[in-house]
């Protein structure tokens, strides 16, 4: 039942570049909440999240011209926001930047319906189990590079390791995943 938006995101960004703050407000209505949500999942300090989202949209106002019309506005905004948050929190070890991987679904939690699981799992399919069984240092590079879209260099800065280390771990993570897929699954009914 979704209808096409009346004005496309890219057109709104073009309007912002022309100095239309109504368009900025509309873009915030569309993307602001999700940016908050995604950032909050990684950082439990809501003050920081609020500031980062504010900075992101101020940057959007100032740099709207730089947006390449063929890209996705949401992805562009996330790139700005996440990088900003990473640099802001670089010195703060107390704040979680990577979602907890050891939380396993329990019976008390609401599980997505079987159909939803299948549809959601389209992204990762059989890899889901393999991802869960990755060793910790591999998980963090996969989260940073594959899921959050950082470059290996940025991931290195975030995790406090050299870029080469990131690349090596990524390579070995993929190898581990491939190995998992060919193994017979235990207790998997």
């Amino acid at each position, binding site marked *: 039942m979704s209808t096409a938006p009346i004005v496309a995101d890219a057109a709104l960004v073009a309007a912002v570049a022309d*100095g*239309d*703050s*109504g368009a900025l407000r509309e873009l915030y209505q569309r993307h602001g909440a999700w940016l908050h949500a995604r950032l909050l999942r990684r950082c439990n300090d809501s003050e920081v999240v609020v500031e980062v989202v504010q900075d992101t949209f101020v940057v959007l106002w100032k740099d709207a011209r730089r947006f390449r019309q063929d890209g996705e506005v949401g992805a562009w905004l996330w790139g700005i926001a996440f990088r900003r948050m990473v640099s802001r929190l670089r010195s703060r070890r107390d704040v979680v930047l990577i979602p907890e991987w050891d939380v396993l679904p329990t019976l008390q939690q609401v599980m997505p319906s079987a159909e939803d699981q299948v549809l959601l799992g389209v992204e990762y399919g059989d890899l889901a189990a393999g991802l869960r069984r990755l060793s910790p240092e591999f998980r963090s590079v996969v989260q940073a590079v594959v899921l959050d879209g950082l470059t290996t260099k940025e991931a290195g800065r975030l995790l406090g390791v050299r870029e080469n280390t990131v690349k090596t771990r990524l390579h070995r993570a993929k190898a581990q995943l491939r190995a998992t897929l060919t193994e017979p699954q235990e207790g998997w009914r």
Partner: protein
Amino acid sequence: MSVPTSTVELAGVGKRYGRTRALVDVDLAFDRGVTGLLGPNGAGKTTLLRIVATSIAADSGEVRLLGRDPHRSHADVTTVRRELGYLPQELGYPSDMTAFGFVEYVAVLKEWNDRERRSQEVRRVLEAVGLADQAPVRIRRLSGGQRRRVGLAQALLGDPKLVVLDEPTAGLDPAQRADLRRTLSALGHRSTVLLSIHQTEDVAALCERVVVLAGGTVRFDGAVTDLVATAVGRVWLADEPGDDALVSWRTGTGRHHVVGGRPPAGADPAEPTLEDAYLLMLGPDAQRVHTPS
């Protein structure tokens, strides 16, 4: 028991610049409502407005604004300025400021010291002139008409009792003029609005009362309809231009619109316009202000 005073009272006001007499013996009083100052260039409109806005002082005569004499003391003139909104004829805008930033700067000059209330007031006046979406835009990126409207916005800060606008319609298109008329007429219910106009069609649209100034003196002071009435019986539509007409031009229908002088043969009386009255009043002093289509 106090004698009710008008918001603006000018008695015998004169002003000279060097050897030029910009204003001569002006007697005027203004109250709530919108009054237009009409007159050719150099007639003294800007000078008069600047005196009322306390921007300059008169050389002679008495000026009373909101019941006070602005020349008497700093305290008096400051009290007047607290209830004053002014749009000067030439306003330069620091190009680096945003529209919001500019109006905010003026708001601080007008003693809006509380940040939150000030922000709300700035947004209110920008909204009133239709620039709410342009608040964060830098002024150098705004068009001429938009800049003029920013200037108008700052004059509306605080809903002042006395609003002085020098050529507020400059650079505005007809739609924006219509908006201005609405804003001014709402303003005129509560405040004394004085504005200068150089196009006669704006007068009828914007003002109830009009003052015609020429050569530094007041030629007419009254309702717009009364000004038009002075031209009744002196304007005709004829097949030929009159010999001693003040001015005449060919209309779109091929006939001639004749103003003043004796009616040419076969002339029919025509409904006078404000411009006809204005031209007749000023005689040879008048400059053509309207180009017939």
